[in-house]
């Protein structure tokens, strides 16, 4: 445990000095402010409180932004150490590779949680300040907060695995961006195309829900939209979310971080310093 915390402490200092903390917090804060400012129009028409509307917008934002920030922090974690030549020395100390990865993970997750808290906090403050009814949306916002952290954890783990497989920071960055594009953007487009082509057949009813659950980003979106009716209404896709059980979506959101970390540790074990 001491060794994990030691690795985490060093990594947190590095994140602070490399401006990663500032960049992550600023990114989340700026996008949340933009959403709060632009998300005010549809409130009255849907009858939802202002914060619930904001949470719906934030959910869509988080699906793109949280994995991106996590991958950007993670891609250098192992490949960077290999490139700098710092890995062989630390591996001659009585510390396991799992401990090293978990230390980095704790530090990066802390940075991510800070960024999420800052961004969502700003959004909540803005909503409650302009609409007293908005407090009704707080549980949804809290749910969005911790699931965002879990989503970030998943992509941190995947980022470490890619970093270990690539062994060079440049290649790792390329893989990370490619993976983000596939899982976050192309995956949904592909599913959409398949559903349209299928025209409500077996694929749409039997396979499609499981494919949504298999993707951590889709599971995150489903859980947040399904768990809050007001949010789902505001997002206008309650119907799609309703076909899949909320608990299954939650299970996917909660299990992915563990799976990703296991992948990261396995990939790191294969790296010869």
């Amino acid at each position, binding site marked *: 445990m001491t060794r994990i915390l030691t690795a985490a402490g060093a990594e947190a200092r590095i994140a602070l000095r490399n401006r990663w903390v500032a960049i992550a917090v600023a990114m989340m804060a700026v996008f949340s402010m933009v959403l709060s400012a632009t998300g005010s129009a549809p409130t009255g028409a849907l009858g939802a409180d202002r914060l619930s509307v904001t949470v719906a917008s934030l959910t869509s934002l988080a699906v793109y932004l949280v994995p991106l920030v996590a991958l950007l922090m993670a891609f250098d974690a192992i490949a960077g150490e290999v490139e700098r030549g710092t890995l062989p020395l630390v591996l001659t100390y*009585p510390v396991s590779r799992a401990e090293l990865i978990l230390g980095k993970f704790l530090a990066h997750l802390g940075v991510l949680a800070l960024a999420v808290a800052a961004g969502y906090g700003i959004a909540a403050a803005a909503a409650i300040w302009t609409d007293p009814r908005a407090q009704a949306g707080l549980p949804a916002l809290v749910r969005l907060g911790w699931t965002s952290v879990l989503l970030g954890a998943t992509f941190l783990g995947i980022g470490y695995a890619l970093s270990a497989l690539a062994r060079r920071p440049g290649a790792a960055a390329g893989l990370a961006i490619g993976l983000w594009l596939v899982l976050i953007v192309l995956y949904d487009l592909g599913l959409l195309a398949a559903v349209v082509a299928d025209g409500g057949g077996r694929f749409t009813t039997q396979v499609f829900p499981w494919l949504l659950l298999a993707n951590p980003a889709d599971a995150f979106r489903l859980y947040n939209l399904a768990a809050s009716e007001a949010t789902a209404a505001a997002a206008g896709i309650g119907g799609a979310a309703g076909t899949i059980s909320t608990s299954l979506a939650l299970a996917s959101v909660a299990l992915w971080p563990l799976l990703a970390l296991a992948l990261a540790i396995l990939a790191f074990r294969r790296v010869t310093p």
Partner: protein
Amino acid sequence: MTTLTISHLTKRFDGVTALQDVSFDVAPGERVALLGHNGAGKSTLMKIVLGLIPATSGTVSLMGAVPGSRAARSLAAYLPENVAFHPALTGLEQVRFYLRMQGEPPREALPLLEKVGLGHAAQRRIGTYSKGMRQRVGLAQALIGRPRLMVLDEPTSGLDPVSRRDFYAILDELAGKGAAILLSSHALTEVEARTDRIVILSQGRLRADDTLANLRRKAALPIRLQVTARPDTADSVAGRLSGARRNGVTVDLICPQEEKLARLGQIAGLEGMIEDVEVLPPSLEDLYSHYSRRDGQ
């Protein structure tokens, strides 16, 4: 009881044999120099001893522990060639990090940095350090927690002569406390004065493993006599001694050890024609070339 025992160690990478049946050991308090050309297998040997890469066959034992096991890693310290650290951390933070990883109290970081002459720069980021300063951070971390085996890969590269002297003084102190030291170096003159035994690797094979005095005796390399003639007599001196004239006044003679006295007698007979004579025993460079070429290229 030896600290490090290497027996019949072989390492192959994709068909290339990096080490072939290498065996030697290092006793407590013994300073052993590992010499060899670039690519002779020195760094590979060190990485296997530290458990960073597995051996293809053969065994390595560190006081009974298997390399790479937690016990072995607690016993051994390592200073890699061109040691690197994260540039964003300060020297103090970096050494504290390694102290905690070794399970030692972090308050020892500053004394360790002072010991290697970095007390004044402890609070500065390593990114601002010179190569020599980074090397000293490397030495500081290698001193953590009374290591029983120090593995040092080209430890004095990038150090100025004064720092080198300080570095060897610290090594002597550690060896005095019973640490076994295995170091590789290209600076042969340093190794000559500062180590107890020399192991020569060439093309992955062990070519020599003995004290310097024994290596000299076994190699029986010829001695060089350098005769300085008086002006204008160099040619006739060279003629009479049947040696080769090197420049205006110097004549070089090469002779086996047992003919040394006879040759010196001849030179003394030419008293009027010569200024001076110097006897040059085979240098460590000569010995090194002798052993690393033998049954090699």
